């Protein structure tokens, strides 16, 4: 078991003929991902890495049964790609690219709420169910199948955490990055709910960052709805506070969003907060061992 994707998930790559698209579709295919089609307007009929390319997502869906789209078109074209995916009735879109205007994401998100399409990202490293499928940029070899679910706002650092787990002999059920943009699709809460319901996930690793309030909301959710053990880490203990939105932005988050507020919220929800990748991996390892040996 796993959440959202498994070996049977049929993936279409939007923007497959670009440098990015062709490189990553090859890597994903090497990992074992069922990349069944690609889409690039104007390039329909061609073949990339043995994958048939179509003019539109509807054709890719009808001809190849694609159900999940990996969006690898440049930022300015992501909105069109995602609306096309919603229109084609795809189950999920994984938006890997950065540089998507926030206004576009706002509209995408509103539309996907209507169709029930799940969006990961934008600016997400992707999602991997080790040993089965990988949709994104993750280095496949650091993952191994196992009982830990990882949800992260960071990309590269989550690879490191998986690496530390795997080195300790602890595999992962599903790992995904929710994306680093101001507005993103699935939230910590959505994924926590899925891990809670997933039979294969025994421990959840949550990797947050300073800024905004997703971690505080996750902590509240964990307290109410998550029975499985959660261990966590918040990045940015030493980072200067973000300046992007200035004071008006700060007022919206109402004093939350700092390293301290996030750590406090998590600890109050019974979630231990590690300070390094090694530490968070060790925490997950210890929880698992204590459960196995019954000394919880």
């Amino acid at each position, binding site marked *: 078991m796993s959440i959202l994707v498994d070996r049977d998930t049929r993936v279409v790559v939007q923007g497959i003929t670009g440098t990015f698209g062709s490189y990553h579709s090859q890597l994903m295919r090497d990992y074992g991902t069922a990349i069944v089609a690609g889409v690039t307007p104007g390039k329909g009929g061609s073949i990339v890495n043995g994958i048939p390319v179509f003019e539109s997502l509807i054709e890719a869906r009808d001809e190849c049964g694609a159900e999940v789209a990996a969006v690898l078109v440049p930022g300015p074209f992501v909105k069109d790609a995602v609306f096309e995916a919603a229109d084609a009735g795809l189950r999920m879109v994984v938006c890997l690219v950065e540089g998507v205007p926030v206004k576009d994401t706002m509209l995408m998100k509103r539309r996907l709420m209507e169709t029930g399409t799940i969006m990961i990202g934008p600016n997400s490293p992707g999602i991997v169910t080790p040993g089965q499928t990988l949709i994104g940029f993750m280095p496949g070899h650091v993952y191994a199948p196992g009982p830990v679910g990882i949800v992260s706002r960071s990309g590269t*650092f989550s690879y490191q955490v998986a690496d530390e787990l795997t080195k300790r002999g602890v595999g992962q059920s599903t790992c995904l990055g929710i994306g680093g943009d101001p*507005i993103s699709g699935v939230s910590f809460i959505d994924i926590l709910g899925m891990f809670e319901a997933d039979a294969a996930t025994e421990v959840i690793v949550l990797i947050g960052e300073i800024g905004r309030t997703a971690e505080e909301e996750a902590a509240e959710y964990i307290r109410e709805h998550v029975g499985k053990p959660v261990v966590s880490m918040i990045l940015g203990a030493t*980072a200067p506070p973000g300046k992007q939105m200035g004071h*008006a932005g700060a007022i919206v988050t109402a004093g939350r969003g700092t390293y301290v507020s996030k750590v406090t919220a998590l600890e109050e929800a019974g979630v231990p907060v590690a300070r390094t990748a090694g530490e968070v991996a060790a925490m997950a390892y210890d929880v698992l061992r204590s459960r196995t040996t019954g000394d919880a």
Partner: protein
Amino acid sequence: MKLLEYQAKELLAEYGIDVPRGSVCRSPEEVAAAWDQIGVLAGGVVLKAQIPSGRRGKAGGIRVVRDRAAAETAASELLGTTLNGFPVGELLVEELVLIKRELYLSVLTDTSPAHPWPLIMISAQGGMDIEEIAAAAPDSLHRVHVDPAYGLHPFQGRFLGRHSGLPSDKQVMLVAAVGAMYRAYWENDAELVEINPLVITEQGSLVAVDAKVTIDNAARYRHKDLKGAEIDSVETRAAAMGLSYVELDGDIGLISNGAGLTMATMDHLALLGGRPANFLDTGERILRGGIADGLSLLLANPQVRTVLINVFGGGVRCDVIAQKIVEAVEALPAAHIPVVATLHGRNDEVGRRILAEAGLPGLRVLPTIDEALATAVLLAKNGAGGPSGADAGRPGGAR
């Protein structure tokens, strides 16, 4: 991208919001000429330093003068100085507005998952910082979310009007200003449009006395005509290279990929007693000049005593990254400060081997992140004469 005050006001004026009569000046002579145009009529002008930073008043960047000579003197005093870290090259010279009442009005992108929509905020208590308003008069702050599928509705504007504390006749003007501000926000992909204070003048008109506009960088390609603050800082030079850089006050220069990993590395360095000199995320530039550009930025900082490169290859291959590191380090002057590198992820064993086999005396390659960080901290403490380059010979794929 932050717009300077006068750029923000020009934008708002295009949308029909009244702003004070003003002129942008770059010399005391220009300020004197502006006085003749504006000051004589108004009986006074305000000189405002054009820097992309708030709290200019407290820093002395805003001067009210009531004659030509005083205007020239104030201009001489302000131009060429540095305020809140920004050099003052331009002054906005504006007519003195007789203020009867000050409001706060803004629209910004609320990024919360529950309401990832534009948010308009108003307070009848303007002039203060929004944070001060929220603390001093929280009940005066009112909010409206705008559904991006349908845009702002008149009834929402009226709601804000009713909470402006203004009499009904002035509310009509306010509702129009809210509509104009929202359009300016939406059509220009702004993250924030803030008018504070928005004032009712003694003459009864509604005027934006100060304005802040920030544009979503990801959408700047759609607004090529929009001009923002041009700041000559190491951060903006880094941004021009496609790198995300923030200078800090430590001595370990850091290059990493991914904002999360970079922050994690900084935090970890601090735990080990080290002090990062910067945040530097190469992002997707890692294979396209990111390493060499990053090194040049770091080495320009005299505080830096050692450089730490911590990369986790996801989409990118560590062997290619290693090659980039070797090239960048080879290009450094003979006796440079030590560079500590560690690589993980895709093809990391090959990558570490390439680094080791390059045999560069100034480059130390560590197989684990923990060791690399510890080494960097030690090197920074001991100066360049720290642990020998022996580690560099240790094969990267040993584990």
